[in-house]
């Protein structure tokens, strides 16, 4: 099972091989998006995941969507909410989905994936699956001056 936690930001920086926040957004916080390809290698039943630059991407490939943030100001930043729409050619994967909130209705309602239900017209409500998710969201209560972090979700190309 994958355990690619938020704390492995240094590895992400190495892979990106570039200044982390090349485009500084106006204001106190810089925000950077990137996409990595999950190159899974299975040897003797053990699977290792290497997240590499996506040179070729085809249906069925697993991708990692990454957002990095840094408080570039000298004041703390409060209630930092990052919203990330899941592009329609990919489907969110459930691994690691308990680290963030999700929406299946384009951001109107939010919750943890395990708690959401999906109701379509004429069909009885059912538990939401990761492929139903339209948007993901992280809420970070405080970012100290100079502090940074990495947010990510896994998705598969439909």
């Amino acid at each position, binding site marked *: 099972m994958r355990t690619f936690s938020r704390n492995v930001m240094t590895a992400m920086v190495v892979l*990106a*091989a*570039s*200044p982390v926040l*090349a*485009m500084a*957004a*106006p*204001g*106190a*916080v810089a*925000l*950077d*998006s*990137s*996409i990595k390809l999950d190159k899974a290698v299975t040897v003797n039943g053990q699977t290792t995941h290497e997240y590499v*630059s*996506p*040179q*070729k*991407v*085809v*249906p*069925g490939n697993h*991708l990692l*969507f990454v*957002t990095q*943030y840094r408080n570039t*100001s000298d*004041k*703390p*930043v*409060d*209630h*930092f*909410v*990052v*919203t*990330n*729409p899941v*592009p*329609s*050619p*990919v489907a969110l994967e459930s691994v690691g989905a308990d680290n963030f909130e999700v929406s299946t209705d384009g951001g109107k309602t939010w919750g943890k994936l395990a708690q959401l239900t999906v109701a379509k017209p004429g069909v009885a409500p059912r538990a939401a699956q990761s492929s139903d998710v339209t948007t993901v969201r992280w809420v970070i209560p405080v*970012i100290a001056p100079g502090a940074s972090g990495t*947010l990510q979700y896994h998705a598969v*190309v*439909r």
Partner: protein
Amino acid sequence: MKRICNLLAAGAATVGLVGGHSAHAAGTLAGTLIQNTANATFSSGSSTSTIQSNTVTVKVDQLVGVAVTALTSTPVTIGTAPAVLIYQVTNTGNGADSFDLTGAPNVSSNQFNATVQTVAIDTNGNGVYDPGVDTVITNGAASQTLAADASIKVFVLAASPTTATDTQTSQVRLTATSVIGSGTPGTLFAGKGTAGVDAVVGASGGTANALANLIASLANVTLTKSALVADPYGGTNPVPGALVTYTIVAHVVGSGTAGSLTVTDAFPSGTTYQANSLTLGGTALTDAADSDAGTASATGITVALGSVAGGAADKTIAFKVKIN
């Protein structure tokens, strides 16, 4: 600084997707752009702010795939006329591709090997081979371009060898191979995909084939001739003046039909044919060439039996000669 191939750093770019996404069995269409932008809101001090990240873009490449099935599930009969075998070829990749089509009749378990006469695409899509309407291709040449998920029907016309015997079985293989590329799954054909995207060979290896079944439906004819002698003295001695009645029985067996079956027999030397003695199934036939099945000439008789199906009742021909 350039970060990663296929990334487009944009300012206030649109969020979501460019290129159109629709549900395809083959997966997201080649050339589709996957774009991701993050938005954030926060407060710092007394002010609140909204910011947006760059938009990162990855283009979906082409995955090459093909599937072939035989549509004629029960064996198709092959006899004096060629058999029409029908296959379906489907583009299982996520982008446009065309496929080389090869009909191969020499399958190792065959009791006989047919010859491939014609390979044709079902151009009007009606599932029936329409000569002059359906496009004939050289065996091994490429089909037209098929979109992702699209399929075509392909006809292979096979002729039976003369050595085949009734109820023998045979198979003909149709192989379809992607023109973009084939080989080990994962092989890259850089820039060879639709609209210049990279193409990767999928799980099928970019090639697929199916076998369709033939069964020989032939007829076998045996002719059995017998003679009955009646001499002028009430006996059966073959003496001058004796009448000989020759009977020829045509016996047809097999699951096929003997077409244009014609029986001929020459009068033995030293005899004289008895005019208008020719009969078929006991019914008299005239010697003259007319609308009935039989004719008699100076040298022999001819009876045209037409098409006789295997297992039909025996045809009995008789005629008389007098020993000179």
